[in-house]
């Protein structure tokens, strides 16, 4: 008689590994960097240095969390650096006019959201590729910042409450880092366990399917750019508060750092797949590499080369080795 048996369930460990391969690989990479710099420099593993690293990484992390949303929908926002610079400059100009800083913070956040929404409107409702829309934004917004400031740096005076945003500390942790952690936690929860997060993933995974089940696909696309604009405004304010001035030359190359951090964290540029945890690790990896190389007294110009090479190697490892088909002990027989 023929006997029918059920196939055994896959081991939970293997399922866990294959589903989180990207995050695990960047976590491994991050730890390797930390161990390497701890071993090669005396100062890396000191509290002061670590606080400094996270204070500097805060603006990147905030924008990277928002960028994760954008990239999960299959889009991209190249204009983040220019948005940060514009908010940075305009905030300084308005503060110099003597308006109270809490008002300026709120107005700038609203302004950032509006600029982001304009990008989203062109992308989602007018069907122009996000790459083009935000590339134009990159040029236009930086141009506005330069025009308004005439290229000068604008000092911010007598706003101690505002400076506390960038320089202060709560329980020994820098305020920008606390804000960044809060942003990351919110981003994590929203993507993982809210209806909106599910809609963002669905639109990135299969936009037509999302539309067919009645999701407001266009609005969701537009909204992620709005979030990006909001995050850029926050980052711009934190940078202005830390430096005590606003400049149109702030955050040059910022968009590349942010996108590198997100991609390093395993978020797919094709959309649908991405995690906030990966983005946090990606951001910290880039920050640690930049900081560690300086502490090793390697030329700051060399940092860029190393950062770029490490991104390439990490992504290469991600795509070639830590793929969904990877298995312990069976990785070699292809």
């Amino acid at each position: 008689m023929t006997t029918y048996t059920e196939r055994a369930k896959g081991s939970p460990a293997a399922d866990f590994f294959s589903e989180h391969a990207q995050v695990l690989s960047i976590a491994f990479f991050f730890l390797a960097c930390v161990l390497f710099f701890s071993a090669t420099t005396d100062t890396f593993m000191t509290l002061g240095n670590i606080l400094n690293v996270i204070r500097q990484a805060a603006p990147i992390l905030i924008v990277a969390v928002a960028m994760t949303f954008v990239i999960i929908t299959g889009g991209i926002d190249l204009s983040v650096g220019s948005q940060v610079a514009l908010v940075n400059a305009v905030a300084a100009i308005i503060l110099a006019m003597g308006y109270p800083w809490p008002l300026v913070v709120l107005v700038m956040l609203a302004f950032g959201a509006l600029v982001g929404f304009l990008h989203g409107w062109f992308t989602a409702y007018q069907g122009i590729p996000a790459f083009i829309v935000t590339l134009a934004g990159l040029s236009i917004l930086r141009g506005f910042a330069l025009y308004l400031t005439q290229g000068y740096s604008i000092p911010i005076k007598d706003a101690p409450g505002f400076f506390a945003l960038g320089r202060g500390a709560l329980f020994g942790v820098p305020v920008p880092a606390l804000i960044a952690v809060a942003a990351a936690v919110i981003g994590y929860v929203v993507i993982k366990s809210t209806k909106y997060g599910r809609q963002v993933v669905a639109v990135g995974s299969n936009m037509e399917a999302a539309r067919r089940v009645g999701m407001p696909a266009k609005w969701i696309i537009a909204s992620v750019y709005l979030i990006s604009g909001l995050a850029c405004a926050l980052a711009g304010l934190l940078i202005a508060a830390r430096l005590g001035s606003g400049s149109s030359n702030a955050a040059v190359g910022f968009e590349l750092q942010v996108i590198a951090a997100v991609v390093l964290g395993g978020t797919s540029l094709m959309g649908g797949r991405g995690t906030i945890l990966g983005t946090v690790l990606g951001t910290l990896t880039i920050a640690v590499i930049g900081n560690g190389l300086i502490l090793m007294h390697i030329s700051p110009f060399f940092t860029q080369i190393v950062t770029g090479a490490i991104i390439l190697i990490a992504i290469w490892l991600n795509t070639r080795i830590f793929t969904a088909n990877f298995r312990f002990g069976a990785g070699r027989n292809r």
Partner: protein
Amino acid sequence: MVVDRQNIEAVTGVGGASPSRAGVAPRVSLKGIRKTFGSHQALRGVDLDIFPGECLGLVGDNAAGKSTLTKIISGTYIPDDGTITVEGQAVRFSGPADARNLNIEMVFQDLSLCDHIDVVGNLFLGREISKGPFLDTGTMLAEARKMLDALEIRIPRLTARVEKLSGGQRQAIAIARAASFNPKVLIMDEPTSALAVAEVEAVLALINRVKAKGVSVILITHRLQDLFRVCDRIAVMYEGTKVAERDIGKTDLEDLVRLIVGEGAKQ
């Protein structure tokens, strides 16, 4: 091309005795539906009635307009001309959400699943159960298990992403999604193309079961033998028009094949 010389007789839906159902109001009634994509006339004036508790088989050659017609009923495409009446009310869908609100569900040929979302998430796509702003994952998981068990679909791990599943399992999920939320009209575009023997049987049994509950089913399939097991009526499409309608008892495989390839028209 045939498209250029429109056959008036075909447009008005003649060609074979149109089966009458006196006394029963159609659940969905299409009149003079036209749809053009660029210069391609996908539908050239189609009339079709679907009654409660019946299964209508929609057959035709490739590119005959079957999928386009069903996508119009499900609100995915907006017709250029013609009227849609649902339960006596004239409706104008502005998108798929409108049709879904009227309990018109569709299994799409491309399945319309989100590969990066797990099985549970796909079953509840667009209908997520939430507690406040948060997804109620526990309830959805339990409900999803019940939904799949009811359809005898076996998927071991419901938290697996859909991209990891086989073609048949994916198709089963798409069917479960459409069939599980009390549809009044269930449209299935090639639902069994990737299914194994037992699963095809399960789908055919499902169609008979939902029919008994009064659901109107529209089935598109190239497996003509399946039509004779579940359908009450068959509509044949040819080059964007409905060329014939047959009661299942008054036709056979040969007759259908002849209507599909359009031998009648060529003579």
